[in-house]
């Protein structure tokens, strides 16, 4: 191994970019070579000075016009005034159509109903999801609760807003989840299981930017269902348990999610 050390290598040493073996060689070289050691010290000192001088420019406050949610809303406005659907990503398109359709159906203003746009009540989407995935013993969820960070990151990115699945709902524990397709666009499905092996499903789907609606009970497909919305996100719980019990679970989740938000 050569002990010839170039200025760029001294720089890489100062920047901690050398591999361990070479780093050791340069360190030994510096011990015997005060000129080189001074060069390294000068780089380190200059970098520290530059970082101190530039630190105030890293303003931790994010101005309103650069907030992600604000930009998503702006994108929707612009898209609204365009005729075509081209050029926009699936994410923005989904976000936007969810908003437009959600607003058209009056969801969040008049509770849950089928609007003229044909958007289905969220609780029905949740019941469909339940019917498809609940009986699946092999792959009821795409990402299991043991990888909940990955699950939360995935659904957050697809829904365009931060979302994390509650670990438990009453005595039901998170089994995992997946992104599913609904008439409103992508939604997050979280599945929970209790000690008796009974499963319930929670569906989460963006609706409009600020819609909020109280908890509503229903009984889709012989199951119990509840739905509500908070600040533009719709939630629905569906399961084979008593309506009263599910209503209580819904209330608990709702306050829990509100605390987190």
């Amino acid at each position: 191994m050569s002990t010839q050390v170039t200025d760029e290598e001294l720089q890489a040493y100062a920047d901690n970019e050398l591999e361990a073996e070479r780093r050791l060689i340069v360190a030994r070289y510096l011990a015997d070579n005060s000129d080189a050691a001074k060069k390294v010290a000068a780089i380190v000192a200059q970098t520290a000075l530059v970082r101190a001088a530039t630190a105030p420019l890293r303003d931790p406050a994010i101005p309103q016009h650069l907030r992600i949610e604000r930009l998503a809303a702006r994108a929707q406005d612009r898209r609204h005034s365009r005729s075509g659907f081209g050029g926009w990503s699936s994410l923005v398109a989904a976000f936007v159509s969810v908003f437009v359709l959600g607003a058209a159906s009056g969801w969040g203003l008049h509770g849950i109903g089928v609007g003229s746009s044909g958007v289905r009540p969220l609780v029905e989407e949740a019941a469909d999801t339940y019917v498809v995935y609940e009986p699946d013993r092999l792959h009821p969820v795409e990402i299991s609760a043991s990888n909940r960070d990955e699950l939360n990151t995935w659904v957050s990115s697809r829904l365009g807003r931060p979302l994390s699945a509650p670990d438990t709902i009453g005595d039901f524990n998170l089994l995992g989840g997946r992104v599913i397709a609904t008439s409103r666009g992508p939604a997050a499905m979280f599945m929970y299981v209790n000690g008796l092996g009974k499963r319930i499903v929670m569906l989460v789907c963006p609706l409009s930017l600020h819609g909020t609606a109280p908890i509503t009970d229903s009984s889709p497909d012989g199951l119990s269902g509840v739905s509500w919305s908070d600040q533009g996100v719709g939630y629905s719980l569906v399961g084979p348990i008593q309506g009263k019990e599910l209503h209580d679970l819904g209330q608990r989740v709702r306050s829990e999610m509100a605390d987190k938000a």
Partner: protein
Amino acid sequence: MVRLVEPLIPALRRYARMLSKDRSAADDLVQDCLERLFTRWHLRRPDDDLKAWVFTILHNIAVNHFRRASRHGRQIAIDEIDEAQLSFPARQEDAVTHAQVLAAIDRLPDEHRGVFLLIAVEELSYAEAASILDIPIGTVMSRLHRARARLQSLLTDNASPPALRIVR
């Protein structure tokens, strides 16, 4: 996405601001960058380095912006850095004020400044900077080295009057 990207915004704004020398343009560049993230988010691979990926998008937007600006005659506004430089308080000779550091970085050649900002300021690795700027790692190292040497001479050259700048 919000949770992953928003923590990067302060660094993106700083980078855009120091790269463009033009504060008003910087936030526009960041905004363009964030909007482009929406349209490309689904293209991101899970093991991609998010910070490097976002900086790449911002850097490309900035370069295109400067290319357009130079075609139309670049406008340089008097920015805060210059004002600060003109009004910094008297100090001991060997003390370098932060404003002087910013002014000196501002005077680095464009291609050196980009490399320098990514590594010395934003603390990215050589490999990340090479990927963002789409240049070989050896070029990153040589530009970085020259940027540092130039900066050092600008900072030790305090006796000379501030360089005149063309305004508009």
